[in-house]
């Protein structure tokens, strides 16, 4: 049984791979066709719509409301989302410090230069 998280991932991957907006029906068909592990079989359109509305709430998917059925597309590319997430990781605000533990914390420019010199010299 696929979890909602797996479904979200599958839907996002389809939307990232498709330049045009898709309807929930098209998405269901695409999921059924693609051999995407456990996710594929017997998905109801309502399930796809649930997943889409969750993704919309998370700000990952936008809905084109002009005509029915609604068409969905990703807000931005996978690369942009990754860049944004890594930006969160790399820029440690004091109130975020306890959220995750980085191997190397924020490094000042002078320190980074010293380290680069160390690397060059070794």
């Amino acid at each position, binding site marked *: 049984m696929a979890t909602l*998280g797996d479904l*979200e*991932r599958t839907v*996002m991957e389809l939307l990232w791979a498709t330049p045009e907006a898709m309807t929930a029906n098209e998405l269901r068909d695409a999921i059924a066709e693609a051999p995407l592990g456990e996710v594929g079989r017997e998905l109801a359109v309502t399930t796809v719509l649930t997943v889409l509305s969750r993704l919309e709430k*998370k700000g*990952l998917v936008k809905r084109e409301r002009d005509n029915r059925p609604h068409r969905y597309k990703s807000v931005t590319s*996978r*690369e*942009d*989302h*990754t*860049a*944004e*997430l*890594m*930006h*969160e*990781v*790399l*820029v*440690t*605000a*004091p*109130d*975020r*410090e*306890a*959220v*995750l*533990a*980085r*191997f*190397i*914390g*924020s*490094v*000042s*420019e002078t*320190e*980074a230069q010293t*380290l*680069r010199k*160390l*690397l060059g010299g*070794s």
Partner: protein
Amino acid sequence: MFWASYLLAALAILLAWPAPIALSRASWPARAPFTAMVLWQSIALAGGLSMIGAMLVWGLEPLGDNLISASSGFFDIVLNDRSAQTLGVIHVFAISAATLLFGHLVFTLALTFVRIRRQRRRHRDMLNLLSSPAADQPATLVINHPAPVAYCLPGGARSVTVMSDGLMDLLSRAELDAVLTHENAHLHQRHHLLLWAFAAWRSALPWLPTSQLAQRAVSELIEMLADDEALRHVDEQTLMRAIVIVGAGTLPRAADPLDDPLADETRFGTTPGADVTGGTADAHSTAPRLRRLLTPLPPLGRVQQALALSTAGLLLVVPPALLVAPELLG
């Protein structure tokens, strides 16, 4: 029991200023990070306790000569509507201040917990969409990003360590192992609980030097503890190289937009390089970590360790003892 409240106040001041400043300047914590960590925890805990205790004992003074009898007198007034004439305005003020401070600390702790949990959940959600499991490492995710990044995201059974493929390109197999054992040590030793408690302590009392010093010291000490764990699997040279390579490459080189997908200024409002260097006040220096790898010092002697640990123990015993002492003595 005035003297008990004065002693508690003196202890509170000692633990708020001179003690944390001295400990943050000492060099021995690098030789005994675990002991230093215990000491920091007891300073924070005893500091808070004696701050609250001093005000409480002082405010309740007219009602009894120790905390137990005084509190029962206090509840008598509150619950049974007894006359409160013995309590002056200033006593009521001290009791209220103690209660408010206690509430504030507990509330901030809870609030910080909720905030951290929410941010972690959101982060994990995004990781679920954007990363893929590492080939040969359990509970490790790989994310497509050129900067060499490694971090762990605690979350009980769903704790994960995340590496970027930029990191995997730059590091050798052994250096990657060093990074992974370092991150796993954070998770196994539950360092996130310490980070949580001290982050809460800092946001509750940001003006108190001890809260800032403590948070900085604790985040430095957990890195040393994790380094020590990594050293059980790899040698100093390997770990040092990993630290240097990641440290040198962590800063997004804003000058080279091709190298840096974050350079899209409209999206984040500012260049990431400026953001990262802007936060130098909280930049955790790699220098202390490298120094203790370059010239390993012998661990702190048994006697000094025992001394530090018994100080920590004493700090936890003294404030509660002072709260009830007048009765025991008198």
